[in-house]
């Protein structure tokens, strides 16, 4: 990771203490600190100025930094990204907000055909230090297009860094790193965890490329990211009651993928379960499992399992709890990989 050392951050480090805050507040603090630290940073998106964003992630920032740096954009997602490309040509570091996951598709061309390729296309001459923030995932009882997990489209695209965050500390540090990174970074924020609280130390840095082992265990490796990290940790606690020891990995970076951390864990446990909200077909779980099979086939003691959204469009809110992977479905997959009694055996 190449990041530009920033003197202003050092100043902040000296004065900031660890505080308890929500993920939303942590993201707000990260954006505020980034705007403070670098005059080239600006925010652009729908309703992010006067309203402070539909999730209030940018609350108060327009008042503090002005309408030229916290820009309420017209309702055009392709325009938000494409305009930011032009700003980056002129030396700015735009942080774009796509209001909801399901609204990113109109911007697909600008992201995959422009943002992702300009560095490659120009032989490294043009950098695209855009940060594209997207609240993603379900579980909030929303209407259609507000609960999607489109991360695989972008992880599939060369030239983009795709990261997720799972807790307030991770959200703060990852957002700062994303904005300082000279590559385009898409940050997927788990909207149903926006109000979860945690300790945040603003001096902690993140690297945008490594997974982290959140809990060590010996019987199976459980890989999650974004909103399901909390669910995976809860599943690990529940598994303890059955005497099963789960190692929980938060992938964090979806592209590039930290296959070493996953492989090292699978070599220890011999079993792998991957979970995410997105449909499983051609997904992050497809890639994680393929990587593990390539990297540590000889250490696998059972076929890897996955627990994902079904291969359907996101369903109506009334049945989303059946669609979303929960503790019980995860533990059922753990049982399968351990050869314990499970739902499919019963069927």
């Amino acid at each position, binding site marked *: 990771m190449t990041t530009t050392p920033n003197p202003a951050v050092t100043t902040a480090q000296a004065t900031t203490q660890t505080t308890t805050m929500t993920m939303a507040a942590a993201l707000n603090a990260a954006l505020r600190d980034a705007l403070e630290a670098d005059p080239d940073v600006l925010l652009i998106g729908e309703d992010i100025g006067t309203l402070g964003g539909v999730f209030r992630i940018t609350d108060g920032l327009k008042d503090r930094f002005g309408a030229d740096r916290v820009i309420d954009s017209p309702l055009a997602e392709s325009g938000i990204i494409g305009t930011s490309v*032009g700003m980056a040509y002129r030396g700015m570091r735009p942080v774009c907000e796509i209001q909801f996951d399901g609204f990113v598709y109109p911007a697909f061309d600008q992201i995959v055909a422009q943002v992702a390729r300009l560095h490659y296309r120009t032989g490294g*001459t043009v950098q695209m230090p855009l940060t594209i923030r997207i609240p993603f995932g379900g579980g909030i009882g929303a209407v259609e297009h507000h609960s999607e997990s489109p991360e695989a489209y972008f992880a599939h695209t060369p030239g983009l860094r795709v990261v997720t965050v799972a807790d307030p500390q991770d959200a703060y540090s990852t957002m700062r790193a994303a904005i300082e990174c000279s590559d385009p970074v898409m940050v997927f924020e788990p909207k149903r965890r926006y109000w979860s609280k945690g300790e945040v130390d603003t001096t902690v840095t993140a690297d945008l490329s490594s997974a982290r082992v959140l809990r060590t265990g010996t019987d199976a490796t459980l890989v999650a990211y974004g909103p399901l990290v909390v669910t995976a940790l809860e599943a690990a606690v529940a598994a303890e009651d059955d005497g099963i020891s789960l190692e929980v990995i938060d992938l964090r970076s979806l592209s*590039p993928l930290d296959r070493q951390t996953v492989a090292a864990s699978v070599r220890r446990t011999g079993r792998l379960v991957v979970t995410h909200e997105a449909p499983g077909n051609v997904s992050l779980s497809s890639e994680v499992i393929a990587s593990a099979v390539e990297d540590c086939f000889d250490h696998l003691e059972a076929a890897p399992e996955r627990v994902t959204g079904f291969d359907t469009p996101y369903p109506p809110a009334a049945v989303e709890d059946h669609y979303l992977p929960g503790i019980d479905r995860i533990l059922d997959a753990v049982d399968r990989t351990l050869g314990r009694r499970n739902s499919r055996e019963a069927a």
Partner: protein
Amino acid sequence: MLTTTSAPDHDLVAGLVQPLYVLAEDGTRHPDPTLDPLLRDVDEELLTGLFLDMAVIRALDDEAVALQRQGELGLWPPLRGQEAAQIGLARALPSTDFFFTSYRENGLAWCRGVSPGEMLSVWRGTTLSGWDPFAHHMATPQVIIGAQAHHAVGYAMATKAQGKDDIAVACFGDGALSQGDLNEAMVFAASFRAPVLFFCQNNQYAISEPVALQATVPIALRPTGFGIPSLRVDGNDVLAMRAVSLFAARHIRSGKGPMFIEAVTYRLGPHTTSDDPTRYRDEEELESWRRRCPIARLERHLEQLGTDVEQLRAEAKRRSLEATTALREAVTTLPEPAPESLFENVLSTEHPGLVRQREQFRAFRNSLAPEQADGQQTEGSSA
């Protein structure tokens, strides 16, 4: 009702009935109250300069077509017929204004000092970008129709935020009128009063599709719905092109927001060297536009002014030969990229997955029989 006092006739659009022009087809000077004040500096030197630019870019364009026919280029998008539109614009703006163009704007590239090799490498397939955009204040060709309009607006918004008076120019064709990106870009430009010029070369066709399929009203009318003043101009009149470009740049630079120019012109050649235009347009139409050749028109004008046209033609021939010789030489000496270079610059930083794939690729190449690998390894030796 939005109005602007800065556009000609205190209206949002000029040239709707008759595109603005100052040179008639027979080369005679036609007075225009809006454009005349912008042409006071025109003298023989300026006119011959425009003539030579147009003649040389046509020769380069023809040479590139020939190189494609000879198998030296994979593809080439000819600009024949559009010389005045491009040269008139390029010679009106300072070289620090930034162009975001489509792929047919080699006349602009020529005026911005792009070298022949830089102009051709994309079409020979040795690079994805021919030149350093920052060195020439011109982004490299955009293939996705209309996508660059956003980039121009964003660039313009940034120059404004930085308090600089550089402007950006979005160059596109009539086909882009149907793209969401162009329309969105006009919304952003109008709302933020971005210092950007929308420059449409209406060459009548998007490959085979006539302009009527993209716009049932004159293109110049479209931006007025966004509140952007618009000038419709004879794109084959290089003097008028220069004048409207000066007019628009002055308007934009004075902080009045974006402006739109529709240059009404015609693509005399195919869309690209892969196209067969006889399938969609007839000889009669083509001939009518050949008679409106922008270079011949300026030549007639110079003749009327008493310029030694024979001598000027000879000079054009000399310069064209110089340029085309350099082009031909450049294309055959363009460096072939090393195979492993395909892994470079995906990200600005190291990517472990790509490092692994490059190592596997290298091992595979090394595993090839020596007679297979020999040539390839020489090429790839930089890695």
